[in-house]
C-alpha cells in the first residue's frame, strides 16, 4: 500500500503542477476568485472522517465490533456526504456559473484535479462499504485489524490530498 500511495502521489503531483502552472493564465473569465467559496462543509466532513476511521480502528483492535460498526458507518457517511457536497458544488458551477472543462484553463485544471480527487473518494467509499457489508455479515474479526488498517491508510492518503487541493485550489488560486 505504501507503493500504491507513492505511485498515486506521483499522479496527483502532475495534476497539481498543471494547476499551479496555469493559475492566472486563463484568457477568458470566469476566474477562481469569482466562483470558489471555501469548502467548509466538504473539508469538515473529509477531515473529520480521518478521525472517525481511527476511532473505528481503535475499537476493532480492542475487539469491540459493535462500536467498530458504528464509527465505520460514520466514516462511510462522511465519505458519501463529501461526494454529495462535490456534486452540488459542480452542479452550481456548471449550471449557474457556466464553468465547464472546456470553458478555459481554470475549468480544465480545476475539474481534472478536483475530479481526480473525487474519484478517489468514490473508490474509498466503495472500499469502506465493502468492509461494512462484510463486517455486518460477521466476516470481520479482531484478527483482521491489519487489513483494515491498510484501507484506512488509503483513506488518510485521500484526506492528505484534499489538504493539498484545498491549499492549492481554494486558497492560493483564489487569492492570486
Amino acid at each position: 500500500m505504501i507503493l500504491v500511495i507513492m505511485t498515486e502521489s506521483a499522479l496527483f503531483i502532475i495534476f497539481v503542477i498543471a494547476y499551479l502552472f496555469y493559475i492566472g493564465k486563463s484568457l477568458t473569465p470566469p476566474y477562481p476568485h469569482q466562483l470558489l467559496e471555501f469548502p467548509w462543509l466538504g473539508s469538515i466532513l473529509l477531515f473529520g472522517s480521518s478521525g472517525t476511521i481511527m476511532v473505528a480502528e481503535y475499537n476493532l483492535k480492542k475487539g469491540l465490533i459493535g462500536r467498530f460498526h458504528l464509527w465505520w458507518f460514520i466514516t462511510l457517511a462522511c465519505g458519501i456526504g463529501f461526494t454529495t457536497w462535490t456534486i452540488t458544488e459542480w452542479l452550481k458551477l456548471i449550471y449557474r456559473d457556466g464553468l465547464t472543462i472546456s470553458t478555459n484553463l481554470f475549468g480544465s485544471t480545476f475539474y481534472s484535479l478536483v475530479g481526480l480527487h473525487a474519484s478517489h473518494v468514490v473508490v474509498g467509499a466503495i472500499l469502506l462499504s465493502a468492509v461494512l457489508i462484510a463486517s455486518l455479515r460477521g466476516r470481520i474479526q479482531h484478527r483482521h485489524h491489519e487489513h483494515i488498517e491498510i484501507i484506512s491508510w488509503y483513506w488518510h492518503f485521500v484526506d492528505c490530498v484534499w489538504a493539498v487541493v484545498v491549499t492549492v485550489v481554494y486558497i492560493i488560486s483564489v487569492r492570486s
Partner: protein
Amino acid sequence: MANSTRTIDIGTAQAPARPGEERGTLTGWLQDLVFTVDHKKLGLMYIGTGWLFFVLAGSMATFIRLQLAVPSNHVVTPQEFNGLITMHGTVMIFFVAMPFAFGFANYIVPLQIGARDMAFPRLNAFSFWVTFLGGCLLFMSYFCAPGLYDAGGPPQVGWFALAPLNSSAFSRGPSVDYWSLSLLVTGIGSITGGVNVMVTIFCYRCKGMTLYRMPLFVWMIVVTMFLVIMFIPPLTAAQIMLMLERLLGATFFDTQAGGSAILWQHFFWIFGHPEVYILVLPAFGIVSEVVPVFSRKPIFGYPAMVAASVVIGFISAGVWAHHMFTVGMSPFSTTFFAFSTLLIAIPTGIKIFNWLATMYGGKIRFEVPMLFCIGFLFQFLIAGLTGVMLGVAPFDWQLNDSYFVIAHFHYVIVGAIIFAVFAGTYYWYPKAFGRMLSKKLGLWHFWLFTIGFHLTFDPQHISGILGMPRRIYTYQPGRGWEIWNLISTIGVIFQGAAAVIFVFNMFWSYWKGKQAGEDPWDAWTLEWVTSSPPPEYNFEKLPEVLSRRPLWDLKHPDDPDWKYE
C-alpha cells in the same frame, strides 16, 4: 559466525522424466494460457508478447529503411511513413522493451529469491493482460480509425506526440485517441506489475536472503520497479489530460486558450527519460548475471554495482529536460540539466569498469550469452559516449533531431538492451524449456546480428553530423547522405536474417535441442537449483542461503563463500 557444518538446505524437485512429455494438447495449452496465474508462464507470455511485437515493429523499420535507401524514393506515401515511424517507436518502447523487462522480472525474480510465486499472482495476470490489451488497442488504430482523408490508419505524431500536433485540430480522427488510450492502459499494467514485483522482492525472499545477498539482477529490478512506480504516473496524467483535451474540449496544451505546448513536453519527458533507465536496468541485471558465470569469477564490486544502480535511479529523475535543449530554456535550466546528464555517466561508467574487472583474469567461456554480453559492453560504451556528447547543450543544439540522435538511442536500445535480452534468452532458455538453444545457430545469429547492427547504425552517426534530420520522408541527392543511407539499409538484411535464425532456433531447440539438466552453465544463483523447467511450485522445499552464491556453497562445501562475506 554460522556453524561451519551448515550447508544450504534445498529440496530436490521432481523433474518430469523427459521435458516434452507433459506438454499436452493445443487447446489445453491455450486454456492454460488464459487462466494461468503462474509467474513463470506469465513471464514467458510477457517475453513472447515482446518478440511478437518485435517482429511487427521490426518489419515497420524495414519499410522505413527501404524508403530511405536511395534519394527521392517512394516506397510508401508520406502519410504511411509518418504512421510507420510513430508505430515503430511506440511499439518498440512500450510493447517490446517493457514486456521484456517485466517478462524477465516475472520469470527470474521469484526463482532467484527462492519464492514460490509472485506476491499477488492474480494481479500479475491482470498486469499482463492489460499490457497485452494496450498493444492490441494501438494496432486497432489500423482497422478501426478509417474515415476522413488523412484521418484513418495509424497515428502520425511520432512516438512522443508533441503538442499541438496531438490535438484534435491537427490529428483528426480517432487514431491519436487509440494511441493515447493504449499508453494509458499499458501504463496501468506496468504500475500494477511494478507494485507486485516490489512487494515480492521485499516480502518473499527465502531464509537467509538478506538484501545484501540478493543477486544483482534482483537489485536492478528493484530500482527499475521503483522508477516504474514513480515515473509511469506522469505519463498516465499527461494522457488523461490529452484525452480530456481531445474528447471533452479541455485546453491544457492549447496555446490559443493560454495553455502551454511546452508543458506536454515536460510531462512527457519527466516520464520519458526515467523510461530509458526502466528499460536498460534489467539489461544491466542480465549482464551482471551472465558475465560472472562465464568468466568463472564472482562479480567485481558488488556494493559498488548496487550503489551505482540506486544512484542512477535517483539522478535519472532530474535529467529529463536534456531532451528539450532546443526548445529554448533559461541558461540556468540548461546548465542544470546538462550537468545532471553528465553526472549520470559516472555511475554508468562504474558499472562498465566493474563488468570489465569481472572479466579481467577470469577463465572466459565464449558461449553465446557471453558473446552477446561482450557485444553489449562494446556498444553500450559507445552509446554512453554519444550520450555524453549530446548532454553537452551546445553540441545538442547542433545535432538534436538529427540522425545522430537516432544512432545514439538505437545504440542504447538495440545495441545494449536487445543484445542483453538475447544474452538473457540464451542464458535462461534451458531453464525455461529444459533444452539448450543450438550453439551453432546461436553463433550465426550473433555474428549476423552484430554485423547488421553496425552496418545499420554506425553510418547514421555520420549522416546525422552531415545534417540529415530525423523523421524526414525522403531527401534530395547530392547532400552526401546517399552512401550512408544505403549502407544503413543493407544492414537491415543482415539483422533480418539473424532474426529469422533466432526465431528458428527457438522453435527447433524446443523439440530437438540438447537436454539441459538443472544447471547447464555451472552457475551460482538459486534458479539453477531446481529442475528445468521448474515445477509449478518452483522449490519443493524453500531454500536457505548463506551467501551471494548459494550454489557455489553447495558445490564447494570445503570452501564456501559465506566464510569470506
